[in-house]
């Protein structure tokens, strides 16, 4: 190793100014308003990165198709049994609601979508869906898999959308136990490493003592997430505000990295007729 001869003073000055200009430009990019950042991201995804995203989508779809037939068959059998038992239940429910003078439950249309993840820094909690505004997807729509709640749509474009999963710091969902007696707010807590991220249920009543394994569902409060989507199971107590409320760590139902296929709850489907045997699928209607 040796010291190189120095460049000319003029050249160094020009180099310094150009370098300073580029770094200044990077600081400007860092502080651009969200709308401009969104436009730049969209431009990059639709131009330079488009072929790579196509490959990503194709690989994800191939992984879906490679699922074990026996597992799919077992899932199908479970759903068939559930739907068969629900037929009479739905009718009984309708009659009871009618007798009590209750309105019909709001229904949600779901749109099936492929989940695409990139491994770039800063995109850890973010995933892409191959469904966009043309499919009825809107910002803040809930995204779920067959196991439970995955996340929420954030940005919607014509043919795709960007969503974050429950490990994102802005994720919140109103939750309840499956018997509907205990309510609270679920949010993500960071672990030492991203793999250790989990959920925490805050704001439950101090006297409501939840045990490990208690199932948590979305309560539908606030209107963002439809009622009844599984969030996870209570793991252990986290903290207690003496006499006021308790918090619990929650084992999530969905591991975001493993999701390849999801359902987007697109909107209240007041114009779509839904039979009691409606099941989740592209354009199908499920009760809220």
């Amino acid at each position: 190793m040796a010291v190189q001869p120095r460049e000319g003073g003029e050249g160094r000055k020009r180099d310094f100014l150009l370098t300073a200009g580029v770094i200044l430009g990077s600081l400007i990019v860092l502080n651009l308003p969200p709308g401009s950042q969104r436009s730049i991201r969209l431009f990059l995804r639709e131009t330079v990165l488009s072929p790579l995203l196509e490959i990503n989508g194709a690989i994800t779809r191939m992984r879906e198709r490679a699922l074990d037939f026996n597992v799919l068959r077992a899932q199908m059998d479970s759903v068939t049994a559930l739907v068969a038992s629900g037929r009479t239940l739905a009718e009984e429910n309708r009659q009871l609601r009618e007798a009590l003078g209750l309105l019909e439950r709001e229904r949600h249309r779901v749109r099936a979508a492929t989940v695409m993840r990139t491994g770039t820094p800063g995109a850890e909690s973010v995933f892409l869906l191959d469904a966009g505004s043309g499919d009825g997807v809107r910002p803040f729509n809930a995204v779920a898999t067959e196991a439970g709640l995955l996340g929420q749509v954030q940005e919607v474009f014509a043919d795709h959308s960007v969503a974050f999963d429950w490990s994102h710091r802005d994720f919140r969902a109103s939750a309840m136990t499956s018997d509907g007696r205990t309510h609270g707010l679920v949010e993500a807590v960071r672990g030492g490493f991203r793999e250790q991220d989990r959920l925490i249920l805050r704001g439950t009543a101090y006297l409501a003592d939840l045990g490990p394994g208690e199932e948590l569902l979305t309560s539908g409060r606030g209107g963002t997430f439809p009622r009844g989507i599984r969030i996870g199971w209570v793991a252990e107590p986290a903290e207690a505000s003496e006499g006021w409320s308790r918090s619990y760590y929650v084992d999530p139902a969905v591991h975001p990295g493993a999701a390849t296929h999801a359902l987007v709850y697109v909107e209240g489907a007041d114009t779509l007729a839904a039979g009691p045997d409606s099941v989740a699928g592209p354009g199908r209607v499920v009760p809220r």
Partner: protein
Amino acid sequence: MNLRVLLLCTGLVVTHLLLHVALGLGKVAPDLAVVALLIASRALGSAGGAATGFVLGLLEDAFSVVSFGANVFAMSVVGAVAARTRELFVGDSIPFLAVFLVAGKWGRDVLVWLVWDTGSRPPFNDFALLESPLLAVYAAAAGLLARLVFARGPLSR
């Protein structure tokens, strides 16, 4: 920049994008973009290094919803600083290159952490003192392997 360096760096960037964007491997795949940037910067000069870092950072930030621009800033600064090492160190021996790549990747991660959104960034100790050094060694190993396999001999020739 000679043709061998250009081909090596282009190959590293394309491989990086394939592994991270097309295959979505995340941290399982080494950060070859920063390896390409560090190697290219020494051939391009500080303005060229910063500009290359700017473009590569922009590509990485295409999926960043919370801290858009963090990679742009970090890669630009690393590109500029890496180019200045030309004035201090000549040659590209394997030990020098190993230290250079580890330091460059670690420096980039620390810069990203500094400008990351404070609510979503991991604890500094866990990230900068444990996770990032390991990722830096991994990236450097991958970079050295690529250098030895695809570009034998001095890069400056």
